[in-house]
């Protein structure tokens, strides 16, 4: 049974690994350049020449998806990283020190939670201007409260464990305890949350593209491809199908991986 679960996680790992490989080897894998237009063969159906067909500007969709994996994964990972670092720091400070600091930080988190994430992201994006970096920042910041809560919860449970007290009895100071005991023991939920967060960030970035606040063209981001192609969904479904599938595959893979990690990193389940 465990094997079965792990097999799913392996599938997830395989998918994510494949995507990462694709991103790294994009120039080798992609048959065309991502911005190579051929205005004479626009909106072509999939064929041997164009595996996934072409888009409305005659660009090879397969190549764009391959190159797009660089951007989408990058956005996902960086946004999740921003969320994890900022949220993780806030959450662990709140959880570890407790009391007033906790109250203040958690109130701030409440405030952030109360502002709808999408509105926050859009406002941040509007303020900073669209673009890769800003999208990542916007999505990243809007996920901070989630991470902060998870991390705080994890820190609170770890903090109550006797080994923390044992370490203090051995002369360990706060710094030592946070570094050597709290962090490693909170890593599991954070990693899990982050792996799921990457998926969320990719979807959020796609939604931003839908409103026109995504990545700058002609950079091929999957969400942007998806929303740019939505006008063609009727006559040229391949223009949305493939980027849509790419997003779904990625998120599916990351979720499987996240679930697998959750089990793998749970010391209770460890043998």
């Amino acid at each position, binding site marked *: *049974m465990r094997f*079965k*679960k792990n097999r*799913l996680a392996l599938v997830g790992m395989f998918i994510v690994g494949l995507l990462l490989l694709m991103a790294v080897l994009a120039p080798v894998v992609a048959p065309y350049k991502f911005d190579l237009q051929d205005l004479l063969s626009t909106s072509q159906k999939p064929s041997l020449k164009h595996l996934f067909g072409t888009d409305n500007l005659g660009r090879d969709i397969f190549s764009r998806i391959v190159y797009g994996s660089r951007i989408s994964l990058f956005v996902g990972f960086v946004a999740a990283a921003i969320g994890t670092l900022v949220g993780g720091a806030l959450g662990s400070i709140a959880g570890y020190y407790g009391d007033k600091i906790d109250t203040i930080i958690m*109130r*701030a988190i*409440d*405030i*952030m*939670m*109360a*502002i*709808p*994430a*999408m*509105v926050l992201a*859009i*406002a*941040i994006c*509007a*303020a900073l*201007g669209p673009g890769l970096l800003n999208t990542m920042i916007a999505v990243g910041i809007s996920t901070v409260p989630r991470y902060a809560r998870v991390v705080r919860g994890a820190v609170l449970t770890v903090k109550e464990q006797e080994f923390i007290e044992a370490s203090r009895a051995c002369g360990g100071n706060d710094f030592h305890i946070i570094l050597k005991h709290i962090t490693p023991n909170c890593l599991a939920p954070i990693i899990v949350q982050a792996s799921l967060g990457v*998926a969320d960030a990719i*979807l959020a970035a*796609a*939604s931003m593209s*839908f*409103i026109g606040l995504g990545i700058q063209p002609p950079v091929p981001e999957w*969400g942007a491809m*998806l*929303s740019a192609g*939505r006008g063609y*969904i*009727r006559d040229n479904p391949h223009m*949305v199908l493939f980027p*849509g599938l790419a*997003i*779904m595959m*990625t*998120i*599916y893979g990351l*979720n*499987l991986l996240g679930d697998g990690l959750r089990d793998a990193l749970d010391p209770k389940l460890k043998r």
Partner: protein
Amino acid sequence: MSRYILKRIFHMIPVMFGVSLIIFTLMFFIPGDPARQILGDKATEASISELRAELGLDKPFVVQYVNYIEGVLTGDFGISYTTKQPVSAELFARFPTTLLFAIISILVACIIGIPLGIISATRQYSFIDNISTTLTLLGMSIPSFWLGLMLMLLFSLHLGWFPATGFYGPKYWVLPSVTIGVTSAAFITRMTRSSMLEVIRQDYIRTARSKGQTEFKIITKHALKNAMIPVVTTIGLIFGASLGGQIITEQVFSIPGLGKLMIDAISQRNYPVVEGGVLLIAFSFTVINLLVDLIYAYIDPRIKSQFVIEKKKKESTALKGM
């Protein structure tokens, strides 16, 4: 209990202040001139600055903020720059729709998600469980506008079962609610499953079994209520988030909700609407949170007893005094 609620409402004040300050600051520093948005790109500089003065946009940040807060405290959320209507009227014209939409879609999500989660948990690793896990993950990874359009094509255009856009009656509710419901149901299924798995391993389930209770009753009477707390949290979060407007689904199905209003307001630099809207959403979000906490208390007497501690203490001191 009511004391507790009062206390919670009291706690909402700083949160609302924080929200207003953040959104006001964001709006203040966002590029793009509302006056220019109102008057168009060909308007003269003179009329632009005249309008800026009229809207009070030429004042320093602090003054603007203080004015705004003063207004809010007296129930005046300002006038929408574009429609010239009171912001409160604008918001309350949209809020019922958003609320209705949120309620229906969360219902759809619960109706799908909770039973599926329970079945998955009680038959862990079975065929059904695997299918539901796969569906769940798919549900979480489908971009909503994609799903929305697909549903619309199939059920409105080809089958003609449901109208494509609008939100005028039960028939209209189906497609958008399912669109949102599928994703939310995925989260609820997941949460229900894991929470249920946790609960059915507990000793009191074993106790119930040793009483000779049937499996069905064990699940419904003993396990479900205990498993509900994290599920309710999830439902509360999803519900709270959807009160902020399901921007994309609203757009696809042309539903006059808050989300669309907010996005338009941001892009038109319609500050009063953005600020008022965010305050309203934040307020409803915190109210939902409070409700969720009250539901906790209803579900779990341990939590309830935390609420009434103070009351009890008072009573006991009173008794002692007699």
